């Protein structure tokens, strides 16, 4: 088990190293941020001053080594645009993103799991068809479109909910619905397929042969076992929602990390983009590592796999 944990941790570190190298290179391929930071009439020496001030005049390997060294010291750099530490900006927005992600996850659970369950139990029936339509719409309707339609209906026409921003609980309803809708569809599909697989298994047949009532078979033996992959997906979804709800946060002017990332990309704010991506990567890698270790605890066969 110890070896397994060490091996997985090493894989995670390699993943993070590759991620940091990729994001470092990709942001630099977009061009020189000095042209966006200096005034339009800036002369060559002004641009050189800006590059020198932010260390952009040094060779890429030197910049990368500095970047990694800073990360290890817990320093993600200073945002070009905000002139503030990236970590400060990130953690200022994190509670907002967590709030939105938790609300969206709750909604996606409330929609996705019962609908998936119903689809699986009534396979090929009317409920299953409804479930398929919900899944199809959830996965194909773009978030920005859904967001704008929600604003039009609930804010402009019905005047029930505020349009955007973050003041009280009213503000979270629409962004959570727009964000949770997509993830509800994926949960629905996974719940359905997982339930179908479980319901075809031998122990379910045995449970039925023992004369257990249908609802007990579904709830106690079927659903409980089908829920494992669903919860795994929900965990990863939650991390993605926290860090990458870019479109929804922009549409609803929600002050979260996704919007911070969008602003960073738009302004070619290298430290900000690098910092947000690396922190998101760390979160995803950590969640996956924990899940892997938990699986290994539950199923000893996993420990033996390479």
């Amino acid at each position, binding site marked *: 088990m110890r070896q397994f944990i060490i091996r997985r941790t090493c894989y995670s570190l390699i993943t993070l190293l590759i991620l940091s190298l990729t994001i470092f290179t990709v942001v630099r391929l977009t061009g020189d941020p000095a042209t966006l930071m200096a005034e339009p009439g800036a002369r060559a020496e002004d641009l050189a001053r800006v590059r020198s001030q932010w260390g952009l005049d040094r060779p890429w390997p030197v910049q990368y080594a500095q970047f990694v060294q800073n990360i290890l010291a817990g320093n993600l750099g200073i945002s070009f645009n905000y002139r503030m530490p990236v970590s400060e900006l990130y953690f200022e927005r994190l509670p907002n993103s967590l709030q939105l992600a938790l609300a969206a996850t709750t909604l996606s659970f409330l929609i996705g799991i019962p609908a998936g369950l119903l689809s699986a139990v009534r396979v090929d029936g009317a409920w299953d068809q409804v479930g398929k339509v919900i899944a199809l719409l959830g996965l194909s309707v773009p978030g920005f479109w859904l967001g704008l339609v929600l604003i039009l209906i609930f804010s402009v026409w019905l005047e029930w909910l505020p349009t955007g921003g973050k003041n009280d609980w009213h503000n979270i309803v629409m962004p959570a619905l727009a964000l949770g809708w997509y993830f509800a569809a994926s949960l629905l599909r996974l719940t359905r397929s997982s339930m179908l697989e479980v319901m075809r298994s031998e122990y379910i047949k045995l449970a039925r042969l023992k004369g257990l009532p249908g609802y007990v078979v579904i709830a106690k033996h079927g659903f409980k076992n089908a829920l494992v992959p669903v919860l795994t997906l929900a965990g990863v979804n939650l991390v993605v929602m926290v860090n990458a709800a870019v479109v929804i946060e922009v*549409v*609803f002017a929600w002050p979260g990390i996704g919007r911070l990332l969008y602003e960073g990309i738009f302004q070619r704010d290298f430290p900000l983009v690098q910092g947000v991506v690396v922190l998101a990567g760390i979160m995803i890698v950590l969640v996956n590592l924990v899940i892997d270790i938990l699986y290994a605890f539950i199923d000893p066969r996993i420990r033996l796999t390479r």
Partner: protein
Amino acid sequence: MGAEGRRLRNSIALTRREMLAAGVAMMAQLPAGGAATAGATTGSMTLAWHTAMAPRWLDPQDHDGTATPDNFLTALHDALIKNFGTELYDHRSLAERYEFDKDGKSATFWLRDGIQFHNGDPVTPEDVKFSYESYRGALASTFKAKTEAVDIVDRRTIRFRFKEPFLDFLLLLGSGNVTGAGWVVPAKYYQQVGPDGFKRKPIGAGPYKLAAIEPGVKIQFEAFENYYRPVQIKNFTMVAVPEAATRLAMLERGEADIIYGLPGELVDRVKNNPKLMLAPVLSGSFWLELVGFQDPKSPFHDKRVRQAISLAINRAAINDAESAGLGRVSGNWINDDVQFGLPWPELEFNLEKARALMREAGHPNGFTVDWLTPLAPFYSRGERVVAQLQAIGIRAKLQVMERGVFLQRIQAGIRQWPGVQIIMHGARIGGTWANWYESFFKCGGFNAVDRVCLPELDAKLDRYKSSIDPAPRKELAEEVQRAIMDNCYLVPVFRHAFMNAIGPRIAAHKWQDVFPTITTGYAYPWEDIKLKE
């Protein structure tokens, strides 16, 4: 004096006690620090801003030379002189008067009495001197190169002395959308907290003081009770809402009172809503640069081809499609609201004439342009020009570039634009015509680099800059602009309208009540904007 006279005198004369009481009552009406007598400052107003809000825009010392910081500086800070309404640059703000020497070698400013920063400290010549000398933003090097010394004459007077005649000093100092050198920050506080600390908690001398800030998201202001002019609305919030449809929905619901940056497709929704008011502020100019026109091998070398291109552009159609017809199709490539910007009549759209010129120039079947590249994100404008040029046989492909890449290639010179290429530029530059010329036309200019090099016109600019006589300066400025227009060195397309909208709570009979100034696309002056009773 008879009895009647004495009675009259007694009836209007006040006793000493009454005089004192009246005096106290009058004093009570006056806010401290020489501030103006304001009406009741109440209510709240929200502006939905169209991008993220960068804290650096709150620090005039780091002015980036664009119009963007204007929106924030005009609320939080104040300058010696500034653009205001139809006054281009010389509205007296913190300075109650100024004198500019005839030889252009010094400028003296007298500060208003009793003016204060938001922390209660008085605005002094020391603050002005510090703000000017430590300024490091756009055009800082120009100010530094030309300034001999800044002298504090007395507790309200400050004098700038120059090494050589600096005729554009006032114009640059007062053009808030060109440089931040004229904005005054509190020296002691700035030095105490440093530039980064100042950006997080700025203190100014403007009509609104900072109440709270969420970087990039929201800035809340409160009326500054000791401002020297009345401030009409007590609480003022600027909130960043990047999505245009959301901004409009906020305005419709009354969550925002003023919104900026409305795209053409949403304009009708404002026009059709009687509660809302559209504010199409005439803004930047768009024009075509025919790359390499000085090269005899380029098809653009022939003036008739350049004229044909100009004649083939249906500017009215582009204005209708891109700015709902609210931009302006006539005019110079340089905005005529800058000093010595030359007004120019509407350019003709005549396909027959254009085709005839192409035939005369030896291109009866037109020719191929490798790429037409518009400034990001105005791709649809480029697409329209591509389509219109087909009518005279010019076959161009549209090249779409991200803004940063576009600027980088522009600033790298002609080697980045090989073959036959057209660039569609767009800009709004304040101050003077020379700022436009130096940036986009002068050989070695920041955006022109080596793509355009006409030494005879550059020489005229040099003469203009060294002259201290306004009449020949104006003449030279117009000569240069006329030469560019007559020879179609650049082909103006149109001036677009920066679309804003005003909500029903704001007291405005016409949109110009909220957007009165010709120098910025933003609502201003903030202290004058009122709510309906």
